[in-house]
C-alpha cells in the first residue's frame, strides 16, 4: 500500500511482500463541488494504490474528503479530473449503466447506517447483489460467510427485527458473498456500541486474513483504524500521511 503526495512513485510499492498488482489505483484525483468563488475542492490531487488482499483504513476528520475519495474509488461518484482504475478497468470510461454493472461485479459496500433494504429478509438482502447481477449465489461460499459472521439463525428475519450489530453483520455478509474485488466500508461502526464495533471490525479483519478479501474502510475513529493493515490519513483533500501496521 503506497500513497503519493506529489509525484507518482513506484519504488515503495515493492516494499511490502505483496506481489499482486493493486486492487485499485487513483492518479491525480480531484473533485470540486460548485463553481467560481464558491467552489470547494473535496479532493485536491490524490494518488493512491489500494493493495489487493489487505485491510486499508482511510482516516481523516470530517470534511477532509475521505468519503468523497471512497465514492470515487467505488464508482459511486465521478471525479472532476484524474483517473481511477479498479481491477484493471478505467472507471472514467464507463457511463452510468456501465458503472452500475461494474459495481455489481467488483464492489461491495458496508455503510454506517441504512445498510439493508427494510422490505427484504436478511437472506434476501445478502443475495441481492448476486441477483441484480443475474448470478447464482455460491451456496458453499454463502454458508461459509454466514458461519463466519454468525448470522445463520437470523436469515429469515427482516432488518427491523435485528439488532444494530446483527444488521451490520448481515451487511458485511452481503458485501462478502459476491466476492467483490474490493469491499468498501464507510464508517461501519459509526452507529454501534463498542462491543458490536469490535465484533464487526474483527469480522472485517478475518475476511481479509481468512478469506483473502480486499477491504477499504473509511473511518474517523483511530480505534477502528487500528484493525487495519494500512492507514492512510486524508487532510484537506490530500493524502497527509500513511502508516503501515506491521
Amino acid at each position, binding site marked *: 500500500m503506497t500513497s503519493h503526495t506529489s509525484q507518482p512513485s513506484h519504488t515503495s510499492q515493492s516494499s511490502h511482500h505483496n506481489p499482486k498488482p493493486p486492487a485499485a489505483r487513483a492518479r491525480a484525483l480531484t473533485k470540486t463541488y460548485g463553481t467560481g468563488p464558491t467552489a470547494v475542492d473535496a479532493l485536491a490531487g490524490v494518488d493512491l494504490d489500494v493493495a489487493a488482499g489487505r485491510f486499508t483504513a482511510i482516516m481523516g476528520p470530517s470534511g477532509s474528503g475521505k468519503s468523497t475519495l471512497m465514492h470515487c474509488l467505488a464508482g459511486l*461518484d465521478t471525479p472532476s479530473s484524474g483517473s481511477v482504475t479498479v481491477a484493471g478497468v478505467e472507471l472514467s470510461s464507463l457511463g452510468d449503466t456501465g458503472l*452500475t454493472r461494474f*459495481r455489481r461485479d467488483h464492489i461491495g459496500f458496508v455503510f454506517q447506517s441504512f445498510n439493508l433494504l427494510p422490505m427484504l429478509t436478511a437472506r434476501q438482502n445478502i443475495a441481492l447483489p448476486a441477483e441484480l447481477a443475474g448470478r447464482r449465489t455460491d451456496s458453499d461460499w454463502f454458508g461459509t460467510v454466514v458461519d463466519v459472521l454468525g448470522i445463520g439463525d437470523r436469515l429469515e428475519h427482516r432488518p427491523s427485527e435485528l439488532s444494530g450489530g446483527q444488521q451490520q453483520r448481515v451487511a458485511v455478509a452481503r458485501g462478502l458473498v459476491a466476492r467483490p474485488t474490493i469491499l468498501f466500508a464507510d464508517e461501519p461502526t459509526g452507529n454501534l456500541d463498542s462491543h458490536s464495533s469490535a465484533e464487526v471490525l474483527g469480522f472485517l479483519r478475518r475476511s481479509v486474513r481468512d478469506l483473502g478479501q480486499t477491504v477499504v474502510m473509511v473511518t474517523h475513529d483511530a480505534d477502528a483504524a487500528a484493525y487495519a493493515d494500512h492507514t492512510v490519513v486524508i487532510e484537506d483533500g490530500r493524502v497527509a500521511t500513511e502508516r503501515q501496521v506491521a
Partner: protein
Amino acid sequence: MRTVLLASVRVHTRRYVAAVVAVVVGVGFIVATGGLAAAARAGLLDDLRAEYTGVDVVVQGAYREREVDRVRSAVHDLGGTAVVNAEWRGPVALDGRVLSDEADAGTVALDPELRWQQLAAGTYPTGPGQALVDAHAAEQFGVRIGDRLRVGRGPDAVQVRVTGSTETSSGPLGSPLYLTYPDLRRAGEVVVVDNVAIDCDDCAGTPVDALREVLPERYLVQPATAYLQMMQTEATQGVDVISLVLLVFAAIAFFVSALVIANTFSILLAQRARDFALLRCVGATRRQVLRSVRTEALVVGVGSASLGVAAGVGLGHGLAAVAGLVWPGLPLGAVSFPLAWVGGGWLTGLLVTVGAGLLPARRATRVSPLAALRPADVGGVRTRTGWVRLAGGAVLLLIGGALLVLAMSSHQLAVMLAGGMVSYLGVLAWGPLLFPALVRLVGQVVRRLGVPGALATGNALRNPRRTAATAGSLLVGVTLVSGLLVGVATARGTVTTAMNEEYPVDAALTAPVTPGSNASLSAGTVREVRATDGVAQAQALPGTTLALRLPAAGKGVGAGTGAGTGAGPMLSGRQPVLGVEPATLRRLVHGRPDFVRPRADTLFLPWEVMAGYGLDIGAEVVLGRGPDARTLTVAGAEGFGNTGLVARDTLRALTAGAGVSTRAVWVRAAAGADAADLRGALSTVAAGAGAELSGGLENRAFVDLQLDVLTGATLALLAIGVVIALIGIGNTLGLSVLERGREHALLRALGLTRRQLRVTLAAESALLAVVAGLLGVALGTGYAWIGVRTMMVDVIEDTQLVLPGGQLLAVVGAAAVAGLLACILPARKAARVTPAQGLTAE
C-alpha cells in the same frame, strides 16, 4: 408556532400538489356546473321570453278545435288578435322522400306583433300554404327556401311552400317546422294545443277580466307576465334537476379527493414525525403541534378551494364557448356564477381538505419528544391494521349487506344506494388486509420481472395502510365504472331480447291490401330495396290474400264476432298471408322468433290483427276457401306489418300455387347503417311501389343510441374521480420516492441500473392499479348484480346478468396503463438521484 407553520407550508407546498389538484378538480367541477347551469337557464329563459314578446294575455285550457274557435272569436270581439300555439307530430316528406316519420311542427302567427320567430333568411309566411323551417333542421334535412313539403299522411297531407328559415329557439314553442294554424289542423295526425296567445293592445278595458267573463271557468286566463313566471319556474326546475344529477358525480369526485388528501396528509406528516418530535423537545405542547398542522391543512384548503373556484370559472366560460361553437343550436345564455354554487363549491373543497386532514394530523402529532433523539427510523414503518378499524369495517359490511339484501327483496332504490355506500366503506376499512393479499397474489406474476418485480411487490406490501388508501382511491372509480358497464350490458341484453320480440324485422315493405285486389310487389321494387344503401339483406316473401273464418260458422270471422275495432280488410275476413321459410329468414330477423319456422298447422297473426278479429292465441280458424281450406291454430307475433304468416308449404297447400306473388320484402339493415337515412330511403321506395313500410329499425337505433349516450356521459363524469385517483397514485409514489431516497441510492450502489429502478417503480404503480382494477371489477360486478336484482327483475323477469368480458378486461388494462402513466414523474425523479448523493444526504 407561526414561523414554523409558515416555513413548513413554504417548504412542503410542492408535496401538497396532489391534494391541491384533487380539490381544484372537485371545486372546479362544481363551479363550472353552476356556471353552465346558469347559462342554460338564462338561454332557456331568454328564448322563453322572446316567444311571448308581443303577447298580452295567455289562455290555456282550450284543446278541441271548437274550444279554440270560441276563444278566438271572444278575442276578436274584444278587438285583439290571437295565435294558437300548438304542436303537431307526423310524417314530413320532400319530393316524395320522407324526411322523418315523426317530425314536429309548431305554429307561426301571421300578425307581426304575435309572430316571435326570428327570420334567418327568406320571408315570413303571408298565409296558409306557406311555412318556416328552423335553419338547423333545414341544413340537417337538406330543405331549401322555396321547397315544397308534404306534411301529414295520405289524403290528409298538406302541401306547403317554405318561405323562410328561422333562428333556433330552445323555448317551449321552438320547433323544426312552423305552419299556420289552419294548415296544422288540416294536416291531420295529432295536434296538441298548448295555449292561445293574445295581442290585445287595442282592446277596450282589461282584456284578462273581459275574457274571464266570457269564457268558461275551466279556461286559465292569465296576463302574459304571470304565464311567463309560471313557465320560468318550470324550465328552471328542469335545469336544476340536471345540475343536481351532476352534483352526484361531484360528490363522487370529492369522496375520491378526500381519500387522496387524507393519504397525502398521512404520508407527509409521517415523514415529518421527527420534526414534530423535535418541536415537542424544544417546548411545543401537543396541542400547539396539532393546531399548527390543522392550520396548515386550513391554508392548503383555502388555497386550493380558491384555485378551484378560479379554475371552475375559467372552465365554465371555456366550455360554454366551445359548446356554442360545436352546437350552435344549444340554448346557452350568458355564463354567470351563482353565489350558492361558488360558495358551496368553495366551502365543500375547504371542508373536505380540512376534514380529510384531521385524522392523519391526530395520528402524526401523537409522536413523543423522544422520537427526535432516536436515530432515524429507517424506512420500514409497518402500520398494523387496528382491530377497531377491522371491527368497524365488519359492522359496516354487515349493515351494508343487510341493506342490500333488503333492497333486493323490496326493490327499493334508496335502500340499495345506502347499502352500497355503507358496504363499500366496509370494504375500504378492510383495505389494509384486502389489498396486500391481492398484491401478494398479483405480485407472483410481477416477480417474473426479476429483482425489480420482487422489490416492487415488497414495496407495495411494506405499508399496508398506505397501499390500501392509494389503491382504494382508484377502487372507487373502477368499481363504479365496471358496475356501470355490467349494468348497461345487462340492460342492453334485456332490451335486446324485448326489442327482438317487438321488432324482429328491421324493415318490411308490405303490399297494401285493398278489398278485391291482389296487389303484389314487382321484381323492380325488390331490386330497388336490395340496392338501397344500408341494406345488408333483403328477402322477397310470397303471399296472397285468403278468406279467414271460424271453423263452426261458415262466415267470415269479423262478421261473426261483430268486433267493432278495425275497418275494411279485417272485418271482411280476408287476410293477407305470407309464406315463410326458416332457411331464408334465419339470418334476416333478430333473435329467434317462432314465426320464422311455423308448424304446418299454425297461423301467426300480428297482435293488433288478432285483436281486430276478436281472436285469442290458440283459437282455431279456417283459412282459404273450398277444398284447399285448412284449419289452423292462431299464434301471436309482431313487427312485420299487418300480414299473417304460415309455413311456405302450408301456403302452397292452401292456394295450390294460384294467386301467389311477392307480397312483401323484408330487410336486414347493415351494421352501423344510419337508421333515419335507411328509413327515409326505404319509405321513398315504398311510396313509389304503393307499399306500406313497417319495422323496428329506428326504435332499435334510438334505444341503442340512448344507451350509448347514457354510458358515455356517465363514464365521462366518472372519469373525473378516476383522474383524481390517478393523481393520488402518482403522488403517493412521488412521496414514497422522497422517503426512499437513501434506499434507492443503496440499491443503485449495489448494482441496480437506472432502468431497473424505473422499472421497479413502474411495476409498483402498475401493481397497485391492477389490484384496484381487479377488486373494482369484482365489486362492480357484484353491485351491478344487486342493482339488477333490485331494479330490473321487477320490471322484466328472467333478467340475465350480462358480463361484458372484453370491456371489464379493458378496465383492468386501462387501470394498469394509467398506473404506469402515474409513475412517470416519480420514477424519473427517483432515477435522477446518484448513489453518492443519496447516501450522503442526511
